Each structure stands twice: as structure tokens, then as C-alpha cells.
């Protein structure tokens, strides 16, 4: 009752003020009404009096009252609840678009934008070597080169080097192969890594003659040593050699080394052997450095150019082809491959967001149009234009806030899904999470959407003239807002075509890639890595080990073939080696053959089902005592003996004391690293015929061809190896199908996401087209009724309506094609087997879009002609 009375008084006061009374007069006259002679009158008249005085004070009334905003909000919520379909459509559209955008932005933020988790990360650089004469760029450097970099530069505060390594941990329960890093003592301090217990590697650890030491990751410490703090100082067997554990790293300290933190860190021993002239060309180490404060990358590059020049001068015999370096920001280097794909996704999802916004703008416009009668009347009754505008703005802000909130919830879930789905090899993925920056981004985005698209219909509505609106009745002629809407739909179609074509290109590429034959048969092939430690296994003993493993596995039921290779396709392993052709021992260095050389066991080619083109494959009779033999692939044969018979040709790996390997077979080419990489020349040598005296045991990948589901052989494989040597771990147990699938992982991920976005874009565009056609039909119900009543054929009316909608679709398609032709150029590196402007893809996608557009037109059009003319005419 008090609120009512207060309002009554407010109304009275306003009326008196409007009639020209002063504030004092109006207040006095109004409050006189409170002088009750009714015993049931308000007991708290004083309170009402005081509150009124406050409410009517000029200060309270001049400002943009808080009460007004609250009222607007309440009104907006009620108005939205009254039209649940509109609200649901807008909120769902916004939520999907904002959710997808926020999720992708989270990934981009974590992987690309956020600094690396190291102190002064922007000063960290990586230094690569280049050998220009043989077109090798961004290569790792040798120990000697690292030491020269360290000693000759004046631009780095600190410099360190590392290489990936793996160690067999034995004598601690089940033997395990641990991933590790060998690093200079300077590396961990350079990265700011800190020990949870004990210490990190330090400079003295590199000195020759020191006891072997190792630092464990936090995860391995927990998993293998139960988090025992007494582990520091303990001796463990790594690769069969006793090693002292000197510390455990804090969890997550060194996360830039791929998605899995290394398990073990061991020092690189910098001894005379490593620094010898012989080993200057043995490049294995990645060099990281921290720039001195104030030094730019360009300055560091300049300084390192001088260092490289000095190396070329001082070691002429090593660098006759020249030697240069590349200094690059560490973060940029880590994310370079990944960022392009992520930016593509970000671009696509931004387009989806733009489409969604256009859609919402369209919905808001229709709504404003439908309400223009109400709004015009209110305007005529004296509501200020700004007042009405504010109301509509509040309404659209409320919708976008709800949409943004829902989108954020969706993003939270989507980020988890993304991380779970993401392929291996995306750096920093474990850092991905919704963070404050993403929340701010999303909030800004949804508010902006609300403001931009709340303003448009508000402006339109407030411009409406009452007489026009009322005259229109329910039969309306499309006005300016309708033109805006048509433009919006055209842009929606255009933008969605761009996303669809991008997705189409990726899908087309992916299909082509999947149909690429790898050159061997990956079906029912189980693979694993066996790395006998050189401390325990001499070369001869390793031969026995492999032979034993092969024979025991081969005797298992369902095993069809067993063989081994050092660099298995799709394992990430493999490497090149220099060799010499018979008769060309004195070839100049730039013409020395340097190709992929692989060591394989007898029967490898038949086990892998690699095509044997000529000659024979290796057998058990190719041993150290028999004549040395080699097998080449077609690419190598073509490169070195283009017009000759490769069989019988001989190669050697040592120019001084040549041991000749005779080519006895030619096999088909295979894809080694990825399905989209070119096939490389390959030279195969039997494992049993080592290249030099004192050859070490080599880690090999064993391939097991089964007649059943290959993963079910994994247990048997472990048992067999353990029964031969319980201290011998195996690792990387995977089917070949998995390995190939993984090599496609990132592409599959990008393709899948882009396809999802494309589907979303298509749906939104179809809704947009449907919306405008349905709206047009509703507006023209009367006209359609008359046409039908006058005898127009329904299909002509249908054609008229569809043609009207399709005009927009075609306009959008034309624009979209032009846009896509320009935009997809940046996808050149993402496509495979087609160009980024592949005509077939463009055509198929455009036709598909036109068909969907046509369906979107047909639905409302069919409804229109199904109407009874009498009913439609009565809608007035």
C-alpha cells in the first residue's frame, strides 16, 4: 500500500510540476494529501513524507536514476520471458558462437599469446646452425660449436645446450625406459628451473671425470620412488651404469620441452672427445640462450653472424660450404608450426561469431519491427527517443549477457574437450585453461554484440512515425530495417561460404591424405622399441638378444613375421649419413651423397610388406662374415643411377679404408615421417653388418605382423622380452595404424574443428535465410492471399517467394566466393594434393550452400501457399 501511495504522490507531484508549479509548491500541495482524518490512514506518514522529499529533490531527479536502470532491467527480463522463442534463439546462437570463440581463444592464448613460463621469457632465444651449401637450415649444432658459441659471444647472459635422450631404469622394480634430456649444467639455471629437493644440474657436472649424476622430474620421483625425500644421494642404474640422484625438480618447472616433461636430466659431459675435430660435425644439440638486458634479437643475430664467420675462418676444412646461425625467440620457435593452424581456427571461429552476430541483429530487427506500433505509440505519448532506445538496449544487453554467460559455461566444457581431443605434439597444451583474459574477452565480446545490435533496431524503432505505423496495420511494406536485414543475410551467407570452403579444402586434403599409400602395409602390425644399454650389451650380444626376441616371438601362435629397423616409419626416428659411391670417392663435399640410412634385420621388407622391385632382400645369411650388402629404394636408385642398373653398384661409408656394400635389391619408396611429406631416398644396411669396427649396439624398433588384433600381442611381447632379460625394458608399444593416425592427428583435429565451425556457420546462415523469407511471407500474407484468390497458381507464388530468398543466397555466394578466393590463400600450407583455390571444392561447397539456402526458402514458402486465401485475407 505504501508503494502505491508513494506512486500516487509521485504522479501528483509530477503533474503539478508539469503545470508549472515550483518544486516547493508542488511538494507542499502534494504532501498535504497525507493529512488524513481517516483512522485507518497510514501510520508511517512521516516516513513517506521524508522519502518523498528525498525522491523529488532536484539532484535525485536530474541524474540517470538507478531506479530507472533497475526498472529497465526488470522490464527487459519480463519482455524476454514473454517471447521465449526469440530469447532462446538469440541466447543459443550467442552461446554457441561465444562458447566456441572463447574456447579457441583459450587455446590460442595458452599456446601462442601467453609468455613461456620462465622468468624473463621474452629474452630467451634459440640458436640454430645453417649449412647453406647443402640447404640445411635450423639444424642442431655439435658440442664443439656450442662451446665456441659460449666462449665467443658477448650478447648472452647465459647459454646452454641439450639433446633428447632416453635411459633404461633398472634395479627398481620393473625395468622402464625413461624419457630424458642430456643438458649442459647451465641449461636448468638458464630456464630458472628450481629443485624441490636437492639441486638442479649445474656447471661443474659437465666436467669429465665427475661421477654420473641425474636430476629427476617430480612425476618420476613420485611414481618410481614414492616421493621419498631420501632419494637424493641414492645410486640408481641408468642404462646399466650407477648414477647418483642429486635432485628432484619442482613440478611443471620445465614445460617447454613438448607436452611431456622429461623424466630424467643428465649432464652432457664436455670432454676432449666431444670437442675433437672429428666430432665437430656430429651435431646433436639445441642451443638456448638468454639475451643480455637491452640486447635485441637483431643485435644478437648480428653478433652471432660474426661468431659463425670466425668459426668458418678458424676451421676452414669443416666449413667449406659456409656456416651461419639463426637466432630466434624461443616462444616463436616452439609455436611456429602450431600457431598457423590455431590462427586458422581462430579466424574461422571469428567468422562464425560474426555470422551469429548478424543473425542476432536480424532477430532483434524483426522484433523491433514487430513492436514498432507499441514503440511509436509510446513515442507519440511523449516517451523520449533516448528512453525507448535505452529500453531496447537494455533488452539486448540482457540477452547478450545471458548468452555470454551460457557461452562461457560452454567454453569451459569445450576447452576440456579440446584438450582431451587434441593431437600429441601441440606444445604447451597442458597450460590451456579458461583464464581471466578469456573471461574478459568473452564478456567484452558479448557486451559489444549487445550494444552494436541493440542500437540498430533501437534507432530504427525510434525513427518510426506513428501515423505511418498505424496506417500500415498488419499489412506492411518492408521498410529500411528490412533492407538492413537483407544485407545482413547476404553477409551471413558470404561469411559462411568462406568458412565452408575453408573446411571443404581441409576435408578434401584430409581425404586425399588418408588415401595416400605409405608404401608398406600398416594393417595388424605391432611395433615397439628395444634399446639394449651399451654398458650391458656389446654389439655381438645385442645381435643375440635381437635374434632371441625374434625367434621366441615368431614361435607364438598368430605371429606371421618379426623383424626390426632402427628408424621405423612414423616413429619420429631416422637420420641421414654421408656415404660414397664407388668410382666417386673424391666427389667434392657438396656432391657427397648424404641420405637416410637405416639398419634393418633380415626379413624386414617382407614383414613390412614393402614392395621388392628388383633383386633380393636381406636374409639370415647376410652376416658380418659374408660380403657386405645393401638395399636401396627407388628414389635413391633414381637419384644416383638414373640410367643404370642399381644392382651390383657399391657404396662405402669410409673413404680412407672403404668397406664396400653391394646393392642387392631395390624396394619401393615409403612415407617415413608423415603421409604428406615427399618420399626420400633411403639406403638400407643389414644390422648384422656394422659400418665400422667397435660399432655399438643400436636401439631398434621391432615390428610384429600378426594374424589377429595386434594390440592383443602386447602382453606376449613384454613377457618374451622379460623372459630373456628382466632388466630390459621395452617402450613405445603401438600399432602401426596408431602411429600413422597420430601423424595425421593435428590435421584431423584442425579438420574436425573447422568442419564443426562450418556446420555451425551453415546452420546459422540457413536460419538467417529462413528467417528473412518467413518474415517476408508473414508481411505479405495479405498480398499472397489476394494473388491466390485472384487465381494465381500456387507454384508461381512459391517460385516468387523462393526467388526472392535465393536472390540473397546468390548475392551472398558471389561475395563469399570472392572472399574465399582471397582468404584461403593463407591456407596454402594446410592443403594437400589440391590448391588453396581448388575449383572443385569451391564449386561443390557453393552448390551445397545454395541447396541448403533453397530448402530454407522452401519451408516458409510452402507454408504460405498452403494457406487458405479466405483465412489470409481475414488476418486484417
Amino acid at each position, binding site marked *: 500500500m505504501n508503494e502505491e501511495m508513494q506512486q500516487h*504522490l509521485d504522479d501528483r507531484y509530477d503533474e503539478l510540476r508539469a503545470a508549472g508549479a515550483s518544486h516547493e509548491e508542488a511538494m507542499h500541495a502534494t504532501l498535504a494529501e497525507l493529512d488524513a482524518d481517516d483512522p485507518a490512514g497510514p501510520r508511517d506518514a512521516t516516513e513517506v513524507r521524508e522519502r518523498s522529499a528525498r525522491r523529488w529533490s532536484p539532484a535525485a531527479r536530474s541524474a540517470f536514476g538507478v531506479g530507472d536502470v533497475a526498472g529497465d532491467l*526488470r522490464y527487459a527480463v519480463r519482455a524476454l520471458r514473454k517471447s521465449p522463442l526469440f530469447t532462446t534463439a538469440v541466447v543459443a546462437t550467442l552461446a554457441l558462437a561465444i562458447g566456441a570463440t572463447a574456447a579457441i581463444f583459450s587455446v590460442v592464448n595458452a599456446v601462442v599469446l601467453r609468455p613461456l613460463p620462465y622468468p624473463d621469457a621474452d629474452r630467451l632465444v634459440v640458436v640454430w646452425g645453417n649449412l647453406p651449401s647443402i640447404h640445411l637450415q635450423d639444424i642442431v649444432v655439435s658440442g664443439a660449436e656450442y662451446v665456441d658459441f659460449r666462449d665467443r659471444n658477448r650478447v648472452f647472459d647465459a647459454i646452454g645446450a641439450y639433446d633428447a635422450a632416453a635411459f633404461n631404469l633398472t634395479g627398481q622394480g620393473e625395468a622402464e625406459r625413461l624419457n630424458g634430456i642430456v643438458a649442459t649444467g647451465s641449461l636448468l639455471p638458464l630456464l630458472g628451473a628450481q629443485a624441490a629437493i636437492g639441486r638442479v644440474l649445474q656447471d661443474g657436472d659437465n666436467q669429465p671425470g665427475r661421477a654420473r649424476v641425474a636430476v629427476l622430474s617430480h612425476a618420476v620421483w613420485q611414481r618410481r620412488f614414492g616421493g621419498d625425500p631420501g632419494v637424493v644421494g641414492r645410486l640408481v642404474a641408468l642404462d646399466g651404469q650407477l648414477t647418483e640422484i642429486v635432485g628432484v625438480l619442482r613440478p611443471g618447472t620445465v614445460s617447454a620441452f613438448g607436452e611431456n616433461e622429461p623424466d630424467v636430466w643428465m649432464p652432457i659431459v664436455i670432454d676432449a672427445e666431444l670437442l675433437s675435430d672429428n666430432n665437430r660435425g656430429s651435431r646433436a644439440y639445441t642451443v638456448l640462450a638468454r639475451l643480455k638486458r637491452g640486447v635485441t634479437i637483431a643485435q644478437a643475430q648480428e653478433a652471432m653472424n660474426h661468431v659463425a664467420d670466425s668459426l668458418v675462418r678458424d676451421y676452414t676444412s669443416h666449413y667449406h660450404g659456409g656456416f651461419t646461425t639463426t637466432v630466434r625467440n624461443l616462444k616463436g620457435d616452439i609455436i611456429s608450426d602450431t600457431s598457423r593452424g590455431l590462427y586458422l581456427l581462430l579466424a574461422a571461429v571469428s567468422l562464425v561469431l560474426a555470422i551469429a552476430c548478424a543473425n542476432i541483429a536480424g532477430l532483434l530487427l524483426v522484433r523491433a519491427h514487430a513492436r514498432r506500433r507499441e514503440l511509436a505509440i509510446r513515442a507519440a505519448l511523449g516517451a523520449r527517443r533516448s528512453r525507448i532506445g535505452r529500453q531496447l538496449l537494455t533488452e539486448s544487453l540482457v540477452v547478450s549477457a545471458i548468452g555470454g554467460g551460457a557461452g562461457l559455461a560452454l567454453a569451459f566444457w569445450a576447452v576440456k574437450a579440446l584438450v582431451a581431443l587434441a593431437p600429441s605434439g601441440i606444445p604447451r597444451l597442458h597450460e590451456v585453461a579458461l583464464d581471466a583474459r578469456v573471461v574478459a574477452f568473452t564478456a567484452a565480446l558479448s557486451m559489444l554484440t549487445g550494444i552494436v545490435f541493440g542500437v540498430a533496431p533501437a534507432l530504427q524503432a525510434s525513427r518510426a512515425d506513428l501515423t505511418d505505423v498505424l496506417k500500415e496495420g498488419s499489412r506492411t511494406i518492408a521498410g529500411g530495417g528490412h533492407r538492413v536485414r537483407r544485407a545482413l543475410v547476404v553477409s551471413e551467407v558470404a561469411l559462411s561460404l568462406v568458412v565452408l570452403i575453408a573446411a571443404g579444402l581441409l576435408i578434401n586434403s584430409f581425404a586425399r591424405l588418408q588415401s595416400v599409400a605409405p608404401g608398406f602395409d600398416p594393417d595388424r602390425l605391432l611395433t615397439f622399441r628395444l634399446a639394449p644399454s651399451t654398458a650391458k650389451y656389446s654389439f655381438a650380444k645385442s645381435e643375440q638378444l635381437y635374434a632371441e626376441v625374434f625367434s621366441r616371438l615368431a614361435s607364438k601362435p598368430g605371429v606371421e613375421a618379426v623383424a626390426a629397423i632402427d628408424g621405423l616409419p612414423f616413429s619420429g626416428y631416422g637420420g641421414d649419413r654421408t656415404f660414397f659411391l664407388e668410382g666417386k670417392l673424391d666427389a667434392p663435399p657438396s656432391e657427397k651423397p648424404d641420405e637416410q640410412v637405416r639398419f634393418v634385420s633380415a626379413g624386414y621388407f617382407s614383414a613390412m610388406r614393402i614392395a621388392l622391385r628388383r633383386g633380393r632382400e636381406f636374409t639370415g645369411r647376410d652376416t658380418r662374415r659374408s660380403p657386405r650388402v645393401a638395399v636401396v629404394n627407388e628414389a635413391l636408385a633414381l637419384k644416383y643411377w638414373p640410367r643404370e642398373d642399381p644392382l651390383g653398384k657399391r657404396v662405402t661409408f669410409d673413404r680412407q679404408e672403404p668397406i664396400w656394400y653391394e646393392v642387392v635389391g631395390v624396394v619401393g619408396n615409403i612415407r617415413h615421417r608423415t603421409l604428406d611429406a615427399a618420399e626420400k631416398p633411403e639406403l638400407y644396411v643389414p644390422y648384422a653388418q656394422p659400418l665400422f669396427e667397435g660399432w655399438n649396439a643400436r636401439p631398434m624398433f621391432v615390428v610384429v605382423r600378426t594374424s589377429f588384433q595386434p594390440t592383443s600381442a602386447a602382453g606376449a611381447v613384454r613377457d618374451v622380452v622379460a623372459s630373456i632379460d628382466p632388466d630390459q625394458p621395452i617402450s613405445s608399444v603401438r600399432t602401426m595404424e596408431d602411429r600413422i593416425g597420430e601423424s595425421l592427428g593435428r590435421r584431423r583435429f584442425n579438420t574436425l574443428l573447422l568442419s564443426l565451425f562450418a556446420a555451425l556457420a551453415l546452420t546459422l546462415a540457413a536460419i538467417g535465410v529462413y528467417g528473412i523469407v518467413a518474415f517476408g511471407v508473414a508481411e505479405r500474407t495479405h498480398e499472397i492471399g489476394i494473388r491466390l484468390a485472384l487465381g494465381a497458381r500456387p507454384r508461381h507464388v512459391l517460385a516468387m517467394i523462393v526467388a526472392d530468398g535465393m536472390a540473397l543466397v546468390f548475392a551472398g555466394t558471389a561475395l563469399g566466393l570472392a572472399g574465399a578466393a582471397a582468404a584461403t590463400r593463407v591456407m596454402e600450407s594446410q592443403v594437400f594434393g589440391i590448391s588453396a583455390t581448388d575449383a572443385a571444392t569451391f564449386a561443390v561447397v557453393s552448390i551445397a550452400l545454395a541447396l541448403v539456402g533453397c530448402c530454407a526458402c522452401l519451408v516458409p514458402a510452402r507454408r504460405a501457399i498452403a494457406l487458405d486465401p479466405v483465412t489470409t485475407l481475414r488476418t486484417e
Partner: protein
Amino acid sequence: MQHKSAMLDRELKKGSAELLILSLLEDEPRHGYDLSKLIETRSGGLLKFRVASLYPLLYRLEHRGWIQGRWVEKAGQRRRRYYKLTAAGAAVLASQRSTWRDFVEAINRITRVEHA
């Protein structure tokens, strides 16, 4: 004028006020300020409700179930409580109206005779 108005005000409290409110609500729901304005204008300024009397009266009528109030919000306006006549209210209105007609008829008959 002043004494007349004061007299009628007292008269209203005796029961005719209820009749006025109910009749004004017969056609459409109205809010309190609207009611007070209508009473004032239609009576040519003769009848006037004060805030302190009107709302307690509305409250009583609603309490009896003759009228029903509902908060209504319209864009750009304060929310207001609109009252509408209930079925019970309509019955009361009919009976009061006929009582009033009889009463006025009776008075008229007497006063006409006297003045004639």
C-alpha cells in the same frame, strides 16, 4: 464550496465511496491515481479523495474480495497496481447501485414536492 466538499467527504466515508470506486472499475481496471483523478474530474472538482483515505479504502475493498489488485509493468513507466472488479464486487455494485437509486429516488420525491 469548501464546506460542501468537506460534507461530501464525510458522506463518502459513510459508504457511497465504495459505490464510486466499484462503478469506476466496472468497465476497466484502473490504478489508484487514475481513480482519484476520475472522481475529481467527473464530479467537477466537488468530490476529492485524499491519499490517506483512498488507499486504505482500496485495501479494505480488496480484503473483502470485491476488487483485485495486480502489479503491472509497462515499458518506460513505473510499475503500478491496477484494480479490477471481481464477480463478488460486481454483485455488490449491482445491489448498491439499486439501493442508491432507490435512495436518490426517495430523496428526490421528497425534495421535489417541497420545492414545487
